[in-house]
């Protein structure tokens, strides 16, 4: 107990490097944003296959979700960054590998979210659209997905936050994000508490800003 009170916090090194932290955070943000976008696109595709009613398409889509949901991001990072290079000789840069890993992880979740959203719609919507002569694609694009989007924004926001936090693992494969800045500080000054508190503070702030953005988006898209 006395030790705890005796500890003198050393925020100096952290505050001195605020610009490095922000630069690292910015990398986490854009890597997450790209991965999230790709995960959404992939998720929509998988959800549509899952609901196609054709066994040959829906069964693989189901398996995809089941497997990818269970594999930890850490494993994906090692697979994509080290494994792929060894097995097929394809070399990803750390950032590329991070984006692929985050996309794969995210897509399992977004696929389930889009499936739920599509299934929540009344079957009469697709029927009305098909009866007007719209194609399957046209029906998804103009009738089903715009309605689904409004339903899935809150859960998709959670996936984004999950991926943003997942991005903090990217320093393991030598991506120079804010965690790598914290790691370096920790090694040089032995201030783990301060260094990683900085990471936490930045993430909490980012999540707060992001949530506010989601709320605004929801309001903009809300139907009368």
């Amino acid at each position, binding site marked *: 107990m006395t030790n705890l009170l005796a500890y003198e916090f050393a925020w100096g090194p952290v505050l001195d490097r605020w610009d490095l932290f922000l630069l690292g955070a910015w990398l986490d943000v854009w890597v997450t944003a790209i991965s999230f976008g790709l995960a959404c696109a992939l998720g929509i595709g998988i959800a549509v296959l899952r609901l196609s009613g054709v066994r040959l398409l829906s069964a693989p889509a189901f398996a995809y979700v089941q497997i990818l949901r269970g594999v930890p991001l850490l494993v994906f990072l090692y697979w994509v960054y080290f494994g792929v290079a060894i097995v097929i000789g394809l070399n990803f840069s750390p950032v590329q590998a991070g984006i692929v890993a985050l996309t794969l992880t995210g897509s399992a979740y977004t696929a389930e979210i889009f499936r739920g959203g599509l299934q929540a719609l009344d079957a009469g*919507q697709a029927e*009305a659209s098909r*009866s*007007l*002569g719209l194609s399957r694609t046209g029906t998804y694009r*103009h*009738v089903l997905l715009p309605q689904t989007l409004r339903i899935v924004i809150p859960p998709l926001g959670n996936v984004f936050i999950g991926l943003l936090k997942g991005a903090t693992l990217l320093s393991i494969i030598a991506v120079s994000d804010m965690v790598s800045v914290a790691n370096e500080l920790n090694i040089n000054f032995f201030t783990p508490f301060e260094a990683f508190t900085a990471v936490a503070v930045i993430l909490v702030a980012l999540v707060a800003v992001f949530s506010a953005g989601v709320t605004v988006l929801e309001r903009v898209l809300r139907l009368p």
Partner: protein
Amino acid sequence: MSEAAANQAAELDLGEEIVVAEGIHKSFNRGHKEREIHVLRGVDLQVAKGEVLVVIGPSGSGKSTLLRCLNFIAPPDAGSVTFLGHCLTGEVPRRRPAERMRYERALRFYRTHIGMVFQHFNLFPHMTAADNVALGPTRALGLTRREAKERSLEELERVGMGEKAGQYPSQLSGGQKQRVAIARALAMRPQLMLFDEATSALDPELIGGILEEMKRLAESGMTMIVVTHEMGFAREVGDRVLFMDEGVVVEEGGAREVIESPQHERTQAFLSAILS
């Protein structure tokens, strides 16, 4: 027959049938022993140009399914539907790409030329009334945005909804929603209109207005198949009545004859139950 030729045949008014369905069978949950249900068991029907066919029958007898078979929203398992010179079965030629293409084109022809109005309106909640009506013309008929918009306002005007063009479905009453749904179907300039219990979900005071709309449409010469429990409408506007029970046509004849002096026992029982 090409699309142009089919259109022409329709316009020539040869007094021929617009739609003929033969031997329609439809089951749901096929292959699931316990849950399989054989809804349509060999239904025939034919409707001539300008004719109004009223389909009546108890709940679950397969009336909605029959309408959905006609435009292949629910493709029949057996039997064929001939529409303006095309003849389609529910069997999709999956293996031959060229035939598959021809099949898909025919399907689109059916759907763009057959209008459908639903019990629960099925308006698209994320679009204004005008955009609901314009969607089919832009996306299925290839009209430009402006042409579609014009046509949409014109059709909304026709059903008395011109003022509500900018409103979303949630801002409309049931009767107004159904008017927009009718305008949406008519904006495709269909050769045949299917009405599936178009007034069943409406408050009693709104039913008359929609029936009036349908009557006007019939008087304008539209060919219609109308599923309804409104016997007054059936007798007055219908040319022929078709009574279905358990997936078969039990009785068929002139509207007045069937409703006033049904021959079959099941028709009599149904009518006396519904009219009492």
